């Protein structure tokens, strides 16, 4: 059995080496984590997605990296219709929708009355392959599925969190 003992290993440039630098396979490991909390309210009756303030930016270290995005959204719905109604949230990279949208709503409301449905705790997640080493921003977008609804993110004192993890590819 052989044993190597050294006091320190540095790159030729004198930096502390990464696992990649010394040839260790890091595929699937978490390289960095960015997490942002936000409680700015956004209320919309738009049937097209609009951006919220729940956003985080990450700069991948490699074009082969994947970004695991997970967002906990304090999403609420208010409606004036007696019919079922829903609102939705979806993660966007830049202005491009990725993953699936998550919906919150009711099968029936109470005609003429505002019906609030608290959906706090909705989770959005997606494993993205941005193929870039440029700063990349992920944002939670929200919309109403009918203009008789309003969608509110971060009502009153509630808040949302978005977390980005760079996974080595």
């Amino acid at each position, binding site marked *: 059995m052989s044993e190597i003992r050294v006091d320190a290993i540095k790159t030729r440039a004198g930096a502390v080496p990464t696992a990649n630098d010394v040839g260790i396979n890091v595929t699937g490991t978490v390289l960095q984590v960015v997490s942002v909390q936000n409680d700015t309210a956004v209320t*919309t009756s738009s049937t097209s997605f609009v951006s919220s303030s729940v956003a985080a930016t990450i700069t991948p270290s490699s074009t082969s990296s994947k970004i695991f995005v997970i967002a906990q959204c304090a999403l609420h719905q208010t409606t004036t219709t007696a019919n079922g109604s829903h609102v939705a949230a979806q993660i966007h990279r830049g202005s491009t929708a990725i993953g699936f949208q998550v919906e919150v709503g009711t099968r029936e409301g109470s005609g003429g009355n505002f019906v609030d449905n608290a959906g706090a705790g909705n989770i959005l997640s997606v494993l993205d392959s941005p193929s870039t080493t440029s700063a990349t921003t992920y944002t939670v977008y929200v919309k109403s599925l009918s203009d*008789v609804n309003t969608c509110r993110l971060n009502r009153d004192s509630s808040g949302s969190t978005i977390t980005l993890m760079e996974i080595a590819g």
Partner: protein
Amino acid sequence: MTDIIKSILAINPNAEVTVRADDIKQIEWHNGTTPISEADILAKQAELQEDYEAKEYQRNRASEYPSIAEQLDDLYHNGIDGWKSSIKAIKDKYPKG
């Protein structure tokens, strides 16, 4: 205070609009919705708030009325006059504005 977006939808129920941070200065109009002036929104907000406050007695009464099951039990044991007496006590406690 009544939400800004509720005030907008009270004026135009089909408005497609976004309000950020509940700030009247941060309103975005979507999909061809005709913008409503800040003055009109604030006037509607005040009107809705006044209406909400005027109905405080209704909310107070509603929260104190016994459940339907309890009221049926009251009717069974005390008759219509007994039931009316129970309900009247709550109405008297919270008179109309």
